[in-house]
């Protein structure tokens, strides 16, 4: 039964993997080439250009190509670049000493969408700079007029913070917002966490001799001996919990030992697990791991209590495991599922279990840890109580 559980898990894992091949992030479809002409070999201008090139907002949408003036206009004519920027001599020095030499920006005559967009942005940026400059000069003139030059730095500070806030806000337009389907976990960790939960749940199929309902005559005999129904339930679950925990631990050990002999497995383990040296985090992660086994074993116990026979229970465990894992985004991340399904999936026990497994593998995260522990605790109580009532009635 254990071998079958592992086989099923591998099969489901493969299906899930194939299903998520298309999840890789596609590169940006539009990236504008911009020609740059530097009229002199100036170190400071080169530095400024490199700085702009490396700005996140610029590098996401622009690709700067350094050209000679002739090459630049030729490229613009051939529409090989959407704009041509000609930087004057002594650009940086001019900015610093107030000479402010002009930067020439050329766009093709019958500009395409990218050029038009860039023109708009350039004009907007130029306007912003004009305003900023006017503010600075205006503040200076005002300070001189009122004999308050000592307060000038304060006024300039205010102007800077205002303009920066405005400019930084604009960054949001360019900034790439990454929506990670796997949350704060990497894809490897995400599937590691899912596989961990699926494996534990499928182990439940192998522990049927321990967890399935005992014959009623056997239970009555136990009751006669002074072992009440509640205690019987607890002991049965506890045996199952121990078996599942030990099997899970054995699987873990096999993976670790494999890592010692196969370097690829070792590197995969390192990608999978984010180590921590903080004792409290280790404690929390251990508690999360323990709680995962408790919750899964109670869930499995509940299924055994619910279903009369062994076959029904094993089938139900398999179907429920796969269905709940799918709805909780364990096979395909839930962001790819319909919104209504996401709402349901987020409330299922598997959602909390995957979250907790992520805490164990991907490192401690207080908020997730707290949420998952509460979720798992509630489900443990609920399933535990329901199992007791079902068994008592049966």
């Amino acid at each position, binding site marked *: 039964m254990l071998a079958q559980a592992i086989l099923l898990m591998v099969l489901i894992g493969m299906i899930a993997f194939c299903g998520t091949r298309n999840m890789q992030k596609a590169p940006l479809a539009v990236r504008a080439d911009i020609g740059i002409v530097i009229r002199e070999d100036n170190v400071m201008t080169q530095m400024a250009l490199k700085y702009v090139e490396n700005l996140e907002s610029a590098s996401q949408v622009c690709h700067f190509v350094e050209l000679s003036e002739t090459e630049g206009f030729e490229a613009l004519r051939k529409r090989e670049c959407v704009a041509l920027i000609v930087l004057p001599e002594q650009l940086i020095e001019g900015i610093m000493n107030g000479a402010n030499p002009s930067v020439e920006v050329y766009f093709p005559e019958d500009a395409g969408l990218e050029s038009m967009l860039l023109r708009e942005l350039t004009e907007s940026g130029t306007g912003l700079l004009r305003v900023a400059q006017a503010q600075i000069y205006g503040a200076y003139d005002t300070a001189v007029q009122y004999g308050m030059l000592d307060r000038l730095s304060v006024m300039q500070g205010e102007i800077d913070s205002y303009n920066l806030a405005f400019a930084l806000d604009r960054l949001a337009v360019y900034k790439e917002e990454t929506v990670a389907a796997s949350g704060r976990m990497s894809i490897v960790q995400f599937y590691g966490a899912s596989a961990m939960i699926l494996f534990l749940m499928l182990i439940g199929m192998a522990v049927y*001799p321990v967890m399935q309902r005992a*014959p009623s*005559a056997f239970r*009555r005999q136990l009751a006669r*001996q*002074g072992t009440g129904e509640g205690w019987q339930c607890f002991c049965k679950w506890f045996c199952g919990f121990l078996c599942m925990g030990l099997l899970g631990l054995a699987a873990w050990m096999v993976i670790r030992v494999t890592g010692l002999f196969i370097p690829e497995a070792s590197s995969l383990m390192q990608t999978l697990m984010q180590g921590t040296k903080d004792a409290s985090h280790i404690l929390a992660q251990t508690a999360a791991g323990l709680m995962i086994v408790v919750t899964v074993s109670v869930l499995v116990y509940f299924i055994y209590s619910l279903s009369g026979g062994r076959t029904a229970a094993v089938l139900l465990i398999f179907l429920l495991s796969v269905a709940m894992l799918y709805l909780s985004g364990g096979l395909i991340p839930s962001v790819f599922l319909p919104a209504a399904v996401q709402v349901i999936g987020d409330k299922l026990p598997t959602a909390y279990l995957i979250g907790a497994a992520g805490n164990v593998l991907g490192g401690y995260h207080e908020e997730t840890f707290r949420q998952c522990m509460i979720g798992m605790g509630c489900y443990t109580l609920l399933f535990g109580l329901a199992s007791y009532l079902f068994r008592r009635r049966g």
Partner: protein
Amino acid sequence: MITVEDITSSYGRKKILKGVSFTAMRGECIAIVGANGCGKSTLLSVLAGTLKPKSGEVLYYGRKAWSASGGRMYADREIIRGMTGYVPQENPLIPELTVYDNLRLWYPDKKKLKQELSQGFLNLLGIHEFSDKQVNRLSGGMKKRVSIGIAMAGMPPVLLLDEPSAALDLVCKEEIRRYLQAYLERKGTVVITTHEESELEMCSKVYVMKDGRLKQVDRGLRGEALVRMF
């Protein structure tokens, strides 16, 4: 010795036992016969302590197992556990375990169990011959013998058997009868519910249960004459 005084019991509003009384001495076998659903198993469940009666009293060797106080019934589990062995209609066995492992659940002392298997009552039941077999590979008769073996853990002086021969072949019935005979010879007390006439042979008293009441009948009654009493 068993003393049962005016036991009543009901399921919901339906009264099953309406004042049942009888006594059984050491080494005596009491048979309770009656139609299906007349309350034989209910009476045995009360005697075995798995069902709470409404009123009445049950004493084992003069010690109160069930007694009423302030309108409520109280059980002395220690007495019931120590004095009785109970063989219900269904077998209290875990199918996935071997016979030996099943017995180990009820015989905490490993040495004693081995001794019982080699020369004690379990040997008499013939369990030693198939003690290493898995329960779900046993025949009905074998399972019943193991059930009796389980009930005999701790050698209780009273054995309560609920239709032990139901659905068994003649050989099995004979084996069980032989075993019970041996138990009675050792001064054990047996209360047995049965539909088998052959089992009535070894009983010193036969009671017919009808309408929730027990009526002692001539132990020589058989066949139609006995059925007419139901």
